[in-house]
Each structure stands twice: as C-alpha cells, then as structure tokens.
C-alpha cells in the first residue's frame, strides 16, 4: 500500500531495533515494523482506526516518531513497561490514520498531478456503504458478538478448529462440563447460529448446482456467483488496510520502472 513511502523512510532510519508493543518481535527497519503492525495486529488497527480522529502529520513524520519513541527505551521489558502504553497507543493511532486515510488521500492527489494515466474515476469512491459506521461501532462496542464473552468465542473456535463432531459438542454441553450461561450457547443449534452470524456476508457465498450432459450421462457440478465472490472479498474489513483501489507507477532509485503488484502495471 505504501511501498514508495516505506522505501524513503527505510533509508533514513537508524539501525535501532524497535520492539512491537503487542508481542516480542523486534524490527530494525521501519517498513518491516509498520508492516508487522498492519498484518499481525490488524485487529488492533481496526479498533484504533475507528476510534481516532484525524492526525495532522505526514507519513514520514509518523514513522520517525514511532521509531524514536520505541528507540528511547530499547531495553524495556514486556512485563515491566506498563507506563508508556498510552504513548504507544497515540503513536499507533497516528500510524493507523496514516495508513487508512492520509495515505489514500495523498495517493489520489499525486495521481492527478503526475504522469499517471488511468480510467476516469479509478480508485474514487462513489458513495458510502449503508450502515458501515454502525457496523464498525458495533464491532468496537461488542467485539465478541454474538458471543457474550471472549471465553465463549474461544471455546467455539476451539471446538470448530479441532473438528469435534456435533453430537459430541451436544454431549459436552448436556453433561454440564461447560457453563452455557457464560459461553452463550446451550446446544449445537445455537452455536451454529452464532457461527453463521460471525460471517455477515456469507449470503454471497451461496452454492449453485449446474448440470452438464456428455451424450451418455448427466454430470452435476457446483459453482458460485463470480461477482458475489468478488463482493465478499472486497467487503472483508480484515483486508481494509491492504486493498489497493487505484493504479500507480513505481520506480526504483535509478529511475527504472518497477512492475510488482497488479496496480503497478499499465493495464489496470
């Protein structure tokens, strides 16, 4: 999303390892650290992004502040530094705004002034999604919905991932081993209902059955609506910071054109 900016800031970054405030990874390059925050802690980003106001700083400034703040205390320990949490959050939220809003705005404006050729309206939004703000605020207010607690979600997640048979889950609940009050489901039926609610766009992923004949017999096959699959993927908030909506040209330090991702090519 911000390869050109990241390249510039990497050159000026001192080789001081920055430690991620959410896990124990260390990074010497600002770009790598920023990418780590964006990918590994995407859930933190989403929540912070929707709760912060516009942060009036340029992209490189944010990156510099970030490395400086963390670089001040390279020896601080994970357990022993609860104090600077607020600062880190400030830096982070600035970072998030840079990713989701400022960066996009900068990109669009530079397209019109630069040598960029594109289809009319490329990357420009034509409206707002109905109920999007509501959805985001719901996500922040009640991150575990439809489960009442993180415990219920984690148990459901474990049951699902370990492929426990439905009958065994019913037995587990019926035997009273789990507290159905705190986990939020008292039977496999309600659990399945919760799991369906977790994916609000699953209606896009409906299967259709088609039939073909080969002269002797009829074979059936299954398919999904292509457009609906695209809608489903584009709507996933988890990819919010990764999507590229408009093309751009990229050059390396010698001025040579670089073709990497789809949006750096000419045909989009």
């Amino acid at each position, binding site marked *: *999303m911000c390869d050109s900016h990241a390249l510039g800031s990497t050159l000026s970054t001192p080789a001081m390892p920055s430690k991620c405030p959410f896990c124990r990874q260390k990074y010497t390059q600002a770009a790598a650290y920023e990418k780590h925050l964006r*990918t590994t802690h995407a859930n933190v980003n989403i929540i912070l992004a929707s709760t912060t106001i516009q942060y009036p700083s340029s992209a490189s400034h944010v990156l510099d502040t970030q490395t400086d703040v963390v670089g001040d205390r390279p020896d601080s320990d994970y357990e022993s530094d609860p104090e600077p949490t607020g600062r880190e959050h400030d830096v982070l939220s600035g970072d998030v705004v840079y990713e*989701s809003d400022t960066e*996009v705005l900068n990109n669009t404006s530079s397209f019109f002034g630069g040598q960029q050729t594109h*289809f009319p*309206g490329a*990357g*420009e*939004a*034509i*409206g*707002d*999604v109905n109920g*999007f*703000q509501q959805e*985001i605020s719901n996500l922040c207010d009640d991150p575990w919905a439809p489960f009442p607690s993180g415990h219920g979600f984690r148990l459901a997640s474990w049951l699902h991932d370990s492929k426990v048979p439905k009958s065994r889950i019913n037995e587990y609940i019926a035997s009273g081993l789990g507290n159905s009050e705190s986990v939020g489901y008292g039977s496999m039926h309600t659990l399945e209902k919760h799991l369906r609610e977790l994916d609000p766009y699953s209606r896009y*992923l409906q299967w259709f059955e*088609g039939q*073909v*004949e*080969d*002269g002797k017999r009829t*074979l*059936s*096959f*299954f*398919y*999904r*609506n*292509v*457009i609906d*699959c*695209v*809608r*489903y*993927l*584009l*709507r*996933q*908030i*988890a*990819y*919010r910071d*990764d*999507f*590229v*909506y408009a093309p751009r040209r990229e050059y390396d330090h010698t001025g040579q054109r670089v073709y990497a*991702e*789809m*949006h750096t090519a000419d045909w989009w």
Partner: protein
Amino acid sequence: MSDQTHLSNLSGDKKAWPVYLTLGNLPATRRNKPGSFAVLLLALLPVPPKLTKSSAHHLQRQINADRLRGVFELLFELLQNAALEGVNIDCADGKVGRCFPILSVWIADQMENVALHGIKSNVCPKCEVLPGELGTDANSHRA
C-alpha cells in the same frame, strides 16, 4: 487457479477439480498467505470419467472439451457484463466503488492448460522445439 486433485483410489479414482478465485487488489504478500483466507473456492468442475480405449475415444475427448467450455461460459457469463459496464460494490473502507472485475490471470499447470485450451499435450506451447526433438541441442539442430 485450478488444479485436479486426487481424492481416492479405492472407490473408482475419484477426483475433484476445484477452481479458486482471489483478488489482485490485495498485495501478494497478503493474498498468498494461507491464514488470510483471501482465496475462495469458486467452483467444483465436473470431472469427466476415464476414457476407455474404444472407437469413440476422439469423439468423447471432443465432447469433454465442449462441455468444459460450456461450464466456463456459465461461470463467467456474469463477469462479461460487469467487466464492460462495471458494478457498484461495497468496499472494506466503507465506500461504494465502481468495480470492473475482469479475469486477469489463470494459474494452471501444463495438464490444466492442455484441458483448458484444447492444445496438444505433447507439445510445449511456449517453445518452438517439436515434440520429437525435445532433449536435443537446439543449436546443433539449427546449424
């Protein structure tokens, strides 16, 4: 992307033929990560039964190819109109965008290419060496 997958030997060589779909708008580092779930199963193509050595061999091969073509026409029919005129799609940043979804890349191995494009399986479509001359030195052949 598509690839035939072997499912079972015991109940008559069952095969699945999945077609997957993903978006070029996602950076490759994100898209190709298995945990990102950015690849959707688009279709399970009908696997033609094994060809027998009968007189109708060539005819059957032709029918299979035609049938596959029909399936793809059905699958991508919707895409044709959308790619030309565009569709409004809700995006993850809370905006509605005018999208022109096109099929840009189809990742497939050689046998898939043979099936999808109806080419000969013993000729490489990208190099100029004839099937009988594979493995020989191209330079000495030209001289």
